[in-house]
């Protein structure tokens, strides 16, 4: 245990797992009242919040509202991919684009 604590915690596996599950449609990202902030909750006990306003960060909050970890792009570069996917899902870009294609084709 001590030997593990000597190294910095690597958030990359978590971010990669989140990217994979987001691509699989398992994570339902939602837009919020703050621009460029997207949230989703998993496992009935953790809320993930991507804040892409000034700096891109991923915050992990427990079921009682306490933020227990904040991950930045310097720790996990994959966060940019996750943020892009979250924005796409939260803003329903795919559905809107499909609807737009159908409208344009009818012109």
């Amino acid at each position, binding site marked *: 245990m001590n030997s593990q604590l000597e190294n910095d915690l690597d958030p990359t596996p978590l971010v990669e797992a989140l990217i994979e599950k987001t691509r699989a449609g398992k994570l339902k990202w*939602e*837009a*919020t*009242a*703050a*621009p460029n*902030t997207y*949230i*989703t*909750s*998993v*496992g*009935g*006990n*953790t*809320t993930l*919040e991507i804040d892409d306003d000034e700096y891109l960060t991923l915050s992990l*909050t427990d*079921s*009682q*509202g306490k933020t227990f970890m904040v991950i930045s792009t310097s720790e996990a570069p994959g966060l940019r991919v996750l943020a892009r996917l979250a924005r796409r899902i939260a803003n329903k870009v795919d559905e809107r684009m499909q609807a737009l294609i159908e409208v344009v084709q009818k012109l």
Partner: protein
Amino acid sequence: MQAVIDSHAVTEFLRSIAGSAWFTIAAGIAGLFGLLFSILAWMQAKSASAAAESARKAITIRTLADEFQLACERMDQLLDFIEHDRFAEAALRARELASALGEIPYRREPLLAQDNVDELLNKRTQIEIIGKVLMSTNRGEPLSPEAKKRLFARGQDTTAALRKNLGIIKGEIDRGAKQ
């Protein structure tokens, strides 16, 4: 008038009837009745225990419905405050709501499916973010029409989700009442 019981005579009497077929039959019937009453008592106890459990669950569901009802009313007030630019009051409501919604999934987890718990956690975070945006207006930062529209939209999403959960819980109460 002192009754003297001759123990020897009693023993002889019992020995004489114990050997008879009638005694064996009577003892067998009494044993069967004993068994029957024991089974009936066990069934009654089991039924009473199930009724008590069912009543406890019904009370918990009703309390949960009341909590959701109150959250829906507070959410309506929050939207009303936002609509009328009363941001300080709206921020206060947002804080109350975030606190209430943080507690519900934590305390009522056994009654809610994981998807509902996740949805409530999302809504709690949505309201916290609404609160932060409202607090920024209290610090003198103006709220653009676009930001107000965004606040209102997220608030309406949250109201819809709370009302959906309230509907599910009320459905559960109705089903319980019909049974």
